């Protein structure tokens, strides 16, 4: 045995030593694993302290150790610490392995003898494994300085501006005709009651005018190739049928367009737009698009009113425009594609879609907006009657086993905002039917207090039904809300004029497909999975792809802005490094052993494996490979090996854990 292994067992104060005979384990390793190459077994109070690390470094230099095993806490905590220490002493860091005898032994087992025996087995497994470790070098990848931001809501806008202001180029892609996202639809923002448009539109204008931002609206990413540092995105720029070089956005075309269309996107179905339109007055860019499905010319070949009245020279309307395919290079990508509102028709007992005066939260937002379809007047569906009483139903589609189990986070504050606006503008009686009131952030609880003081009624109970079937004379012609007031333990029927459903938020309907496009995963609820829920919330498992805003989970505007800025900071960090190092845990194919069966090709979720037609073998792109090892396990020829987790390492570890190294097997 030519390798020289050092085994270091940590006391971690009494955290390990309280349950494991640390001294005994270290001595056992030195004695019983001597024939496997262990030349020294040491124990120390705190291995991770600088003195502990020096112990390892000194042995590497003086005893000529070629492998190191540290038996201590979880490798997720200190693997880097000890690998760096080895590197300082001149040993390749990947020749050091940690085995966990704290999280997985001393903290979970009470019996000292059993814990000590398990520690020995775990160390034995580590020793066998490390014998098969190979020296590795991190993979170096240059970073392209451009960034692709997908989604032009507030999170994407913030991210794009941060990066562009720092002096780097950003391509911002938005699938609607204008950036702004959901925030552009709102009237007021909680808890300050700032006008949403007043704080958003300056940022939208900044994006439109920024020399470092290429804005592609009415566009969608259809393909992503490449890897961190060097992505190549294919973007479909849908035909606007408007020449943006000459269009001034004067608005005459949509004024003259004879075709009215119900606007289901921006106005939430409450208002109309024309067949040629910009979604709202402050749209960025200001150029309209033609909605082909509803345009009279595209349907019948006649009309052309927009073209006839267009005052620009040359004419800006071009009915022959075609979709364009653009290719964009980027070193990093930020996904900020937002959320969908929960579809309230899925809960039939709440009557949305059947009972006219049941509104969704987004419809109500549009109604409150001075630029909206009712010019800010809170009225019933007839657009004239002011309600005298309103019920706001919380948690519609959220915290509900039948729909979404999670809390949408924003609806409590949104409902409180609605309550305030209804009372302020109509003087109506307002009832909030809630499960719990959740107001955890700055000045939110104070806003709740304010609504209470203004006279809002609060009923703790989940609404069972909204109906127009009256039982009593005073219920005639009203909406009756059936709810159990759980604080007084009584069923109540509340007759009101208007019901607002505070609908929750959901992942985009196509989040899964979009995730696949970019090679990132969704969690059980459909939100994109972050690299670490606490310590790395905007990075994903795919290097170079970041997430910001509601794609990661429900959140309100301030948090979305913070995440947009955070993702930008991460990207700027990468750009500044110029070249980044990737963990060398990768799979690779031995071409002489590959039979070209292509079983592995379809297994890779990151499209890292390609078949080389000329050589009739498969090949792995190391920059795309994330190191999961599925192909290694699947290769029938054993031609794929995975660095860091090779067959030899894992099989040796199994044997070591079973202590088979102590008594060699006789055939």
């Amino acid at each position, binding site marked *: 045995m030519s390798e020289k292994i050092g085994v270091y067992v940590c006391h971690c104060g009494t955290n390990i030593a309280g349950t494991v005979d640390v001294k005994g384990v270290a001595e056992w390793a030195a004695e019983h694993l001597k024939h496997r190459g262990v030349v020294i077994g040491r124990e120390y109070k705190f291995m991770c302290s600088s003195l502990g690390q020096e112990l390892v470094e000194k042995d590497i230099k003086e005893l000529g150790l070629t492998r190191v095993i540290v038996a201590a806490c979880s490798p997720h905590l200190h693997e880097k610490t000890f690998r760096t220490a080895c590197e300082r002493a001149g040993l390749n860091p990947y020749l050091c392995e940690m085995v966990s005898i704290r999280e997985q032994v001393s903290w*979970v087992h009470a019996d000292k003898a059993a814990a000590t025996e398990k520690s020995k087995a775990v160390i034995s497994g580590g020793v066998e494994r490390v014998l098969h470790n190979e020296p590795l070098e991190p993979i170096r990848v240059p970073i392209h300085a451009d960034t692709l931001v997908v989604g032009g809501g507030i999170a994407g806008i913030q991210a794009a501006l941060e990066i562009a202001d720092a002096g780097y180029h950003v391509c911002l892609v938005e699938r609607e005709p204008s950036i702004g996202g959901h925030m552009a639809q709102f009237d007021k923002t909680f808890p300050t009651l700032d006008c949403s448009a007043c704080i958003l539109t300056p940022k939208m204008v900044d994006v439109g005018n920024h020399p470092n931002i290429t804005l592609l609206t009415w566009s969608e990413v259809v393909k992503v190739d490449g890897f961190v540092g060097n992505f190549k995105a294919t973007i479909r720029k849908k035909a606007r049928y408007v020449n943006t070089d000459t269009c001034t956005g004067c608005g005459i075309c949509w004024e003259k367009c004879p075709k009215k269309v119900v606007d289901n996107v921006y106005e939430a179905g409450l208002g109309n737009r024309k067949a040629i339109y910009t979604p709202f007055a402050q749209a960025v860019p200001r150029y309209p698009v033609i909605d082909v499905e509803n345009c009279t010319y595209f349907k019948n070949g006649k009309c052309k009113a927009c073209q006839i009245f267009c005052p620009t020279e040359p004419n800006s309307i071009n009915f022959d425009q075609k979709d364009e395919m653009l290719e964009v290079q980027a070193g990093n990508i930020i996904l900020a594609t937002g959320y969908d509102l929960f579809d309230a028709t899925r809960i039939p007992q709440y009557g949305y879609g059947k009972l006219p005066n049941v509104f969704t939260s987004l419809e109500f937002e549009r109604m409150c907006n001075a630029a909206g379809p009712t010019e800010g007047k809170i009225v019933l569906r007839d657009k004239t009657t002011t309600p005298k009483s309103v019920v706001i139903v919380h948690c519609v589609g959220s915290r509900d086993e039948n729909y979404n189990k999670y809390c949408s986070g924003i609806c409590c504050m949104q409902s409180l905002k609605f309550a305030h606006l209804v009372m302020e503008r109509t003087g109506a009686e307002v009832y909030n039917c809630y499960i719990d009131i959740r107001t955890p952030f700055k000045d939110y609880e104070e806003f709740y207090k304010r609504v209470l003081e203004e006279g809002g009624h609060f009923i703790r109970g989940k609404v069972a039904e909204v109906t127009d079937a009256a039982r009593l004379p005073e219920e005639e012609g009203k909406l009756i809300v059936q709810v159990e007031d759980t604080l007084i333990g009584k069923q109540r029927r509340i007759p009101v004029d208007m019901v607002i459903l505070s609908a929750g938020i959901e992942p985009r309907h196509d989040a899964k497909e979009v995730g696949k496009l970019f090679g990132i*995963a969704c969690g059980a609820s459909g939100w994109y999975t972050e690299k670490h829920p606490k310590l790395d919330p905007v990075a994903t498992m795919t290097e170079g792809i970041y997430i910001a805003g509601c794609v990661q989970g429900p959140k309100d505007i301030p948090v979305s802005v913070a995440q947009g800025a955070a993702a930008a900071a991460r990207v700027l960090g990468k750009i500044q490094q110029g070249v980044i190092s990737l963990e060398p845990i990768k799979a690779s194919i031995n071409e002489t052993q590959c039979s070209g069966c292509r079983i592995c090709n379809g297994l890779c979720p990151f499209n890292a494996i390609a078949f080389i037609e000329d050589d009739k073998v498969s090949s792995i792109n190391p920059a795309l490979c994330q190191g999961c090892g599925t192909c290694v396990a699947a290769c029938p020829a054993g031609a794929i090996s995975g660095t860091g987790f090779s067959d030899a390492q894992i099989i040796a570890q199994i044997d070591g854990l079973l202590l088979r190294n102590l008594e060699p097997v006789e055939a």
Partner: protein
Amino acid sequence: MTEQFEPTIIGFTCNWCSYRAADLAGTSRMKYAPNVRLIRMMCSGRLDPTFVLRALSGGADGVMITGCHPGECHYIEQNYKALRRFLLLRRVLTGLGIEPERVKLVWASAAEGARFASETTAFVEEIRKLGPLNWGKPVAALENLQEEVSKLEEVPA
């Protein structure tokens, strides 16, 4: 008084969820049976079924395969591949005359330390009931098979 049978169990864990669940069980000081010894892999998709056979032939009485919940894989969908291999493996074990219950699949997210602990203890009890795999010592035939296979894998010059 007969001594209680203490099974030896090898557990395969995924770096992102079940290994972290095991860590969380530790930081939360949840107690579970000490019979399980864990191996960390990057993903349950890395699990080559021969690892399980190796463990069972080498003296383990049971094998626990753990991974992320379906739909939560950090590599998008590789745990589904682990699931497929697990189902196939159970059939192979049955064919070999080994109780398929000796191999168990557990989904545990990084937040489910309690689940990891309780599933581990439950599995140890199940294996205790099944008794030792009773091969006395490691199976030489399988050992040779491994060598034969590696000989075959050598590509002639």
